[in-house]
């Protein structure tokens, strides 16, 4: 049984070529200390401060973002401010300081806040959904089961809710599955490599504050440095003399010149999205723009008033985090849940789960209530038995991920790197399809 061997890797099984490993508890069960839920979280996230902070697994570009901001602002305060305070006004470092604080705090909040991750379905819930899905033809003939959708009418618009094979739920409206974080995120906007996290319902307002304050900061620094160099080169000294006197200003000028256009563009774009109550994902897919020629399509979530849209997106109530990061995993469930969650990494690669695998889940959920709690050892075996039917297949690009790939590819047009305006679009969509094996590629491709 392939999956059983994958789980119960222990020296005895490896040394002796026995087909069935000894029936002993899983290694996870060894430590007796209570574990927090973030330790068994199935998505690809990292947690700090004992679950208080959450980031995507790849936060590679976040240090670069932080570094650039700190470097440019630092050089500004050290080299340009003294001159400007002497010749102009002391308000300049004050304004710069306020903007700098806004940028750093909102960046850290965007990066370390749960974007609105939806927890995965419990086995009973998944089984209940399976029962409700009417699929009489089955998928024994076809290679992969048909994409499951459910239609709802929202504000006289027909909206399709798709079934997420990884999370085993019907995604609520405006929710999308992020392949990088391997989570369904509510009101999914996009996955931002610069902040190292998804941007969704809970952290969109932080993200918006970040890009708006950053555009003010870069414009402010650019203006101040230009003024500084202009003042220095007065009196017949020339620009070269000014640059020699203050070489740091040259670096700041270059960084700010290339950043200000992209950041200002991004802020403008997101202001448009906020005013029309759209997400980047929906805008790129053209969900409500009537691209299919249907004149009646419109955004069903918009309040049809710019002010009301802005207020609801930016000043609306702050929803709670749905994933309980710091709660403790119940000790009687730890034996039951850990096998299921260990299965998930194997199943994660197989996005198109065989119907046999989900039927096995059905059997598991139906069987588990009957098992009495006096026999915890029997539970892992019962849980494991039907699951080996899941055959890990080579990762394929499922239907549901297309929107994310397109959004990532398109997002590169707005997230043009600070140092160059290259457009790495084709590389983006191809590299992001390689899911687990090459995790670093998507972020590096954005820098090419």
């Amino acid at each position, binding site marked *: 049984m392939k999956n059983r061997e994958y789980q119960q890797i222990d020296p005895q099984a490896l040394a002796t070529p026995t087909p069935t490993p000894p029936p002993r508890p899983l290694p996870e069960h060894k430590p007796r200390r209570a574990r927090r839920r973030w330790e068994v979280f199935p998505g690809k996230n990292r947690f700090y401060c004992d679950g208080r902070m959450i980031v995507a697994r790849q936060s590679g570009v976040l240090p670069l973002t932080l570094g650039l901001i700190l470097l440019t602002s630092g050089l500004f305060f050290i080299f340009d401010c003294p001159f400007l305070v002497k010749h102009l006004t002391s308000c300049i470092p004050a304004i710069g300081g306020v903007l700098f604080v806004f940028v750093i705090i909102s960046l850290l909040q965007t990066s370390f806040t749960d974007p609105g991750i939806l927890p995965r379905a419990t086995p009973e819930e998944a089984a209940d959904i399976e029962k409700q899905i009417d699929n009489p033809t089955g998928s024994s003939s076809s290679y992969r089961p048909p994409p499951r959708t459910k239609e709802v009418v929202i504000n006289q618009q027909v909206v399709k809710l798709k079934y997420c094979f990884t999370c085993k739920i019907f995604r609520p409206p405006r929710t999308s599955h992020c392949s990088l974080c391997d989570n369904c995120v509510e009101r999914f906007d996009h996955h931002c490599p610069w902040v190292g996290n998804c941007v969704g319902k809970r952290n969109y307002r932080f993200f918006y*504050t970040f890009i708006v304050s950053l555009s003010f900061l870069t414009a402010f620094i650019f203006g101040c440095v230009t003024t500084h160099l202009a003042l220095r080169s007065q009196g017949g000294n020339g620009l070269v003399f000014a640059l020699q006197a203050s070489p740091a200003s040259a670096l700041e000028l270059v960084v700010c010149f290339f950043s200000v256009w992209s950041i200002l563009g991004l802020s403008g774009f997101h202001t448009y999205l906020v005013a029309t109550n759209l997400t980047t994902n929906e805008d790129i897919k053209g969900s409500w723009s009537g691209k299919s020629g249907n004149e009646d399509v419109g955004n069903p979530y918009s309040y049809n008033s710019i002010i009301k849209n802005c207020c609801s997106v930016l000043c609306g109530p702050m929803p709670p985090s749905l994933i309980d990061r710091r709660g403790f995993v119940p000790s009687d469930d730890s034996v039951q849940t850990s096998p299921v969650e260990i299965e998930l990494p194997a199943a994660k690669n197989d996005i198109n789960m065989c119907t046999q695998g989900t039927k096995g889940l059905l059997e598991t959920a139906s069987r588990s*209530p009957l098992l009495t709690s006096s026999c915890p050892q029997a539970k892992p075996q019962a849980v494991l038995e039907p699951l080996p039917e899941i055959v890990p297949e080579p990762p394929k690009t499922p239907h549901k991920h297309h929107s994310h790939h397109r959004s990532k590819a398109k997002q590169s047009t707005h997230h043009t790197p600070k140092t160059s305006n290259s457009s790495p679009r084709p590389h983006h969509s191809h590299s992001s399809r390689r899911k687990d094996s090459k995790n670093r590629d998507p972020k590096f491709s954005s820098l090419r």
Partner: protein
Amino acid sequence: MSSAPRTATERTKLPYCHESFHNLQELRHSASLANKVFIQRDYTDGTVCKFQTKFPSELESRIERTLFEDTVKMLNNYYAEAEKIGGQSYLEGCLACLTIYLIFLCIETRYEKVLKKISRYIQEQNEKVYAPRGLLITDPIERGMRVIEISVYEDRGSSGSSSGSSTTSSGR
């Protein structure tokens, strides 16, 4: 909400009451979980949190329709109150924006206050209405606000015929 019977003798007179379940503790100790019923979200009003009030067929023999619908409607009202966009939420949002949202670390938002009210309400409903009928409602926040999970318990002493039939139907 209709008044729930307060004394044990009154409770035994209920049409759906299992006499052995007098409170939540007894439910957990003397009953075994037979089935779970899931009340799904109702998305017709958009992304606001609202649950379907359709009465599930599995509960037909366990609880009166009106009691169930009252519970779900009350929960929907609470969630609507939490997510209401009005004067107070704007004030909270603007104040938060000025303090770069650091205020969320210090004070309890209105949403969190309403969630506490909801959990107290569910606890009260479980004690008064659902546990005497061998049912238990799980707070939707524990299921990612996707479903209201109602656990159906069977008395261990009673025959497992109804639980057996429900599991064979789900086992397919």
